[in-house]
Structure formats: structure tokens, C-alpha cells
């Protein structure tokens, strides 16, 4: 049995419990909501989407004086499944290395101000580096169980906090004709994020998220250094325009 099955079971129980709490509140929230990270249910709309970018800072003790700040395109779209279930799809793209994820999220209001979501995403990443001195490619699979709590202020500022853990399911890499792979799943680390979403310009809304990523391996650094059993801290900032 995968090590995270038990955790998922408890998350599911928690979701069902929250769903019961939320039933009485639902009628108060039947409206369109412009938010992408905030755990709003999708009562009226089928889709929500955002486009933006993220900036990741590489760890100084590993990448040394080459302190990189890696920009990455960020496209996310949500698809309504039921009032309380939605599909969360996320593409992070740097062309030479990219990450796609999709997952099912349970989303529900707790009361007038607080909202909750829990879900699980599956991610696939792949990278190519074929320039002078490099003939490398790598790819892998991740699993991301996560929970979010949202707080809606009286003046339309949406604050959400998200806790996510990741499990590395599969990794393969090749340099020239040398290939390695690992199918051993392991706990990879955790990410805590805080996001603010608010009106920006002409009915457009803006999302700003700060993430503290604490991982053994992070896909954006696959070409830079070897995965260690030390968790490495990566701060990441994400800005997105909600479409």
C-alpha cells in the first residue's frame, strides 16, 4: 500500500464532515466568484483560469555563487464537476522544463467568511537540455495531497493558506545514452503557501502567492544538482491574472 493512502483516507473523512457542515450554508454562496487559489465552490461557472508567472530562488549552499532566480510561466484552470468538486489543472512552463498537474478537489464553505478545500493532484514534469556540453533529459511523476483554508474579508480581499505535501513516484534521467530510473516512491517534502486575491483592474482580479517549498527534490532544479536526502528550502513567489 502506498505510504500516503492512510493520509488520503483521513482527508476524505474530513471532507465529508465539512460537507455536512456546509450544507446549511450553501444557499448564501450561490454566485460567481473570481478566484483561482481561494477555495470557492463553483456554483455558477464551469471554468476559472489564470495566467501569470512564478519566481523560484535556488538555495545558496547548493548552487553556490550562482544564485538563480528562475522565472516560470504559470497557467491554471479549474473545471467544475459538481457544486463541491472541481478539477484543478496547472501548467508551469519554462519550455526547457515543464510541469503539468491535474487533481480533484473538494471545496466547501465553512461559514460566511471561511472556506475549505482538500484534494489530491498528480504531477508530471519533464526537462530537456541539449546545448553545448549537455545532452540531458529527465522526467518524473509526483503526487500532491493538499488542503486549503480561505478567509474572505469584508472588502473583497481573499486570503488563503495552503499546505501541500509531495511524494516522488517516479524519476528517470538520461545523459547521452546513459539512462537511469527510479520507481521507488518516497516522501519528498512539504509546501506552505499564502495567497492574496483581490480586484485589480476592470473586473480583473490578481492573485499573489508566496510559497515556502521544503523538498528533497524540486523539478525545476533537475539539471543543476543531484537530489539529496537533505530537504532544501526554496522560496517562490507567484503572480497571476485571473482570466
Amino acid at each position, binding site marked *: 500500500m502506498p505510504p500516503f493512502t492512510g493520509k488520503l483516507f483521513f482527508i476524505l473523512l474530513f471532507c465529508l464532515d465539512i460537507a455536512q457542515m456546509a450544507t446549511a450554508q450553501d444557499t448564501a454562496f450561490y454566485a460567481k466568484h473570481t478566484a483561482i487559489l481561494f477555495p470557492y465552490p463553483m456554483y455558477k461557472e464551469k471554468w476559472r483560469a489564470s495566467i501569470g508567472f512564478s519566481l523560484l530562488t535556488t538555495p*545558496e*549552499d*547548493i548552487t*553556490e*555563487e550562482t544564485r538563480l532566480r528562475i522565472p516560470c510561466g504559470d497557467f491554471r484552470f479549474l473545471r467544475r464537476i459538481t457544486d463541491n468538486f472541481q478539477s484543478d489543472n496547472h501548467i508551469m512552463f519554462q519550455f526547457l522544463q515543464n510541469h503539468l498537474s491535474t487533481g480533484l478537489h473538494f471545496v466547501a464553505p465553512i461559514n460566511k*467568511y*471561511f472556506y475549505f478545500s482538500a484534494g489530491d493532484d498528480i504531477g508530471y514534469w519533464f526537462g530537456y*537540455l541539449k546545448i553545448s*556540453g*549537455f*545532452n*540531458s533529459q529527465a522526467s518524473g511523476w509526483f503526487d500532491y495531497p493538499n488542503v486549503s*483554508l480561505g*478567509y474572505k474579508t469584508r472588502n473583497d480581499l481573499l*486570503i488563503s*493558506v495552503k*499546505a501541500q505535501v509531495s511524494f516522488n513516484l517516479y524519476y528517470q*534521467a*538520461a*545523459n*547521452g*545514452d*546513459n*539512462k*537511469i530510473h*527510479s520507481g521507488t516512491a518516497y516522501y519528498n517534502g*512539504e509546501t*506552505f503557501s*499564502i495567497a492574496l486575491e483581490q480586484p485589480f483592474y476592470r473586473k480583473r482580479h490578481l492573485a499573489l502567492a508566496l510559497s*515556502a517549498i*521544503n523538498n528533497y527534490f524540486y523539478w525545476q532544479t533537475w539539471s543543476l*544538482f*543531484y*537530489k*539529496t*536526502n*537533505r*530537504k532544501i*528550502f526554496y*522560496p517562490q513567489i507567484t503572480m497571476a491574472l485571473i482570466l
Partner: protein
Amino acid sequence: MKKIIFILLSLCLLFSCQKYEVVMPDTSMWNMYNDPATLPLNPAARAAMEGVYSLSRGNDVFGDLAAVKWSHIIQGSDTIFHVSGFFGKDIAYFICEGKQLNGAILFNGYWRKMVSTETGIIHLTIGAGDGAGLLLDPHPVIDSGKITINGLFGSGQEAPNRVITLSYIRKLNRDPAAFQIAAHRSGGRTSDLLPVSENSVAMILKTPEFGSTGVEVDVRYTKDGVPILYHDNTLNLREIQKSGLVGPIENYTYDQLSTFVRLVHGEKIPTLREALDAVVYQTQLSFVWLDTKYTGSIAPVHVIQQEYIQKAAAIGRTVDIVIGLPERDQFNQFLELPDYINTPSLCELGVTEVEQINANIWAPRFTEGTQNELVADEHLKGRKVYVWTIDEPAFIASFINEGHFDGMLSNFPSCIAYNYYVHQ
């Protein structure tokens, strides 16, 4: 809500401030090993016990096989011997000193996993009936199953309490002289949490314990033209203790650096001469890769290179000291040397440049793969090929098993040693 945000931000800070360090265990507490009746091991016993061992206990922590090998350094009038065991799991190794006591052989030291901060004390014993009798014979002959090493290991400073058993199965599989196990930055990076600093004399003296047979060092010039060992472009807290000095190292004279700057573990920044003195006179290392981190004339380094090749020869040693040429600028500077065609060099550029300067060694980056056909071509031209810098254990194994290289550079020389010596 404020409380929740505060708690989450605190969690973020908690994780982001997590500090990793390796606290080296105190290995001086084993009473039996400290017994005044203990005697040093003879050279024949040390040589005979080198080999590949299988693990029947402790393999959950270290893996199923170990390559056991001795190394030594010279300190003044003393020669200090260490026995190292290189394992296949998590780049684990043990490093011990050895003695004999009442017909048994004792090893006392520590173990470490290079992919984490795990370490601890290890005590090993070969009983008189487990092979010590054979090993202590003046002319030991060892076969499979004739040596059993029993011992205990612990975590951190705790007393050893977990069992490890190693059984001799065969000799080390390859001729150590046929393949160069080169340690990056003289032994490993600061981020590898070793007890000594990268590019220090202390690291040069330490790295044979990790299985290294050669070292790569980073050479720069001080303001007054003294070649020293230092990697980064600037003085920074990754490499040195707080000193008040900032900016490029080339802005400071050697006296200023010597007086005010200490590496992260307290050592002085060594001059190239001090480093080569250590290699030639204190170790058995047979290869030095002088990585050219400076811009400007290579001539001062060339003079020192020639001097130390001759010094090694004068004491009957062969030490290949090569000038590393990582990029076009350094390559062009190398062409300015009057006798560049006969100057030992290692070129990281393409084979065209390698042949243009008659480099002794071609050093392609591992990210281009094994390139066996090109490697074979260079071998036909009498040239060696070293690959750099491989730290991923699976790739180290793959390049040793499938490649035809003459040497390999890594921050984890113990991982190369394991794969090279255990490989059949």
C-alpha cells in the same frame, strides 16, 4: 484568522530555518581499543584484508556489499593509516583506525551517509578464529569466507548498539592504479557537510580516506600574484568565516587573506605550493587537476606545476599534475606558454582543442553521456579521458559499468570507489 496565518507563517519560517549539520561523533571512548596492550597492524595484514565483503547484518542500513581499502597519510615522522569501507546504499562509508590486541584485530571509527546527515560510531572486530589469525601471519593468504568482521554501530554519539557483519568474498576487482578516483575541490564541497573545508590542505589530507586517488583543486591569484586555492569569485560566507572582507579574492594580497580570512572550518586559504606540498609529501595521491579559475597568465602556475612534478620524481613518486582548461579564455592563455605542447594539461573543450594543445587528458562533462566511440579514439591517440562531475550514484554506476573512462571526478569519491572496486 490572524492566529492561523501567524501559525502558518511560523511553520514556514521553522522549515526555512532548518539547519543541517553533521556532528562528528567522539570515537575515543572504546576502552578495549584504548588498551595499552594494543599493537599496530603490520603492512601485510592491511594489504591482505582489502577486498569486497558481503554484509549479512547491517545491510538494511548499508547495503549488501562493501569495498574495504586502506589509505595513509604522513604527519611529520608518523604515518597514519585508516581503513575505509565503501557501501552501495546512500553513499555510506566507515572510516576507522586499526590495531591488534591479543590475536584479534580491532577497528574504531565512524560511519557516515553522504546523502544525509546520518553518522555515528562504529566498532569492528576480527576475532582470532574469524580471520585475524590468518591476517596476522607474516604471509597471509586469504580466500572467500576466511575473514568475518563483526561489529556494532550507533547513531550520533550514542553507544554502538546495532549489529553489522561483513564477510570477505573476493579481492578488489580492479587495479586501483588503472583508474583515477578524483575528488572535486580537493575532497568535497562545503555543502556536503564534511568536517574540513573544501580546497584546504586538511581536505587534501582527508580525501584518501574517501577512496580518492587524485584531487581537483581551484586555483586563483591574489592581488600580489600568489596562486591560492579558492573556488568562488568572491569572499562569501559559504566558503569562509565572517571576516569583514568582501568582494573578489583578487582584490586582496596573500598577507591580508592569510591574516584575516579563515575557511569555514577554520583553516587558512592555502597557497598552491602548500597544497602540492601536502599532495607530494604527505599523501599517496597520484593526480592533481589544477582547475583554472583565474583569468590572465598561466605562467606562474606552470612554473609551480613543473617544480612539483620534479619534486615528486625526486622522491620516487609519479604525480600527474595537470593544468585544467575549462573554457576558451584559459585555453588561449595556455597557448601563450612557450612550451605548451609539452605541458601536462587537461582540456574540457572538444577533441579538436584537445589535440591542438596535445593535452594529456580530455575531460568531457558527464551530461554528454559515455561517448564511447570518441573515448576509444582518444585512447588510440595515447590520451586519457576523465569524466566530470558525477554525483548521482546511479550515473556513477552506469558510467563505470558502461563507459571506458580512465578517471572520474565527483564530490563523492567514496561512491566511485565502491562502484569501481566492487564492479566485476
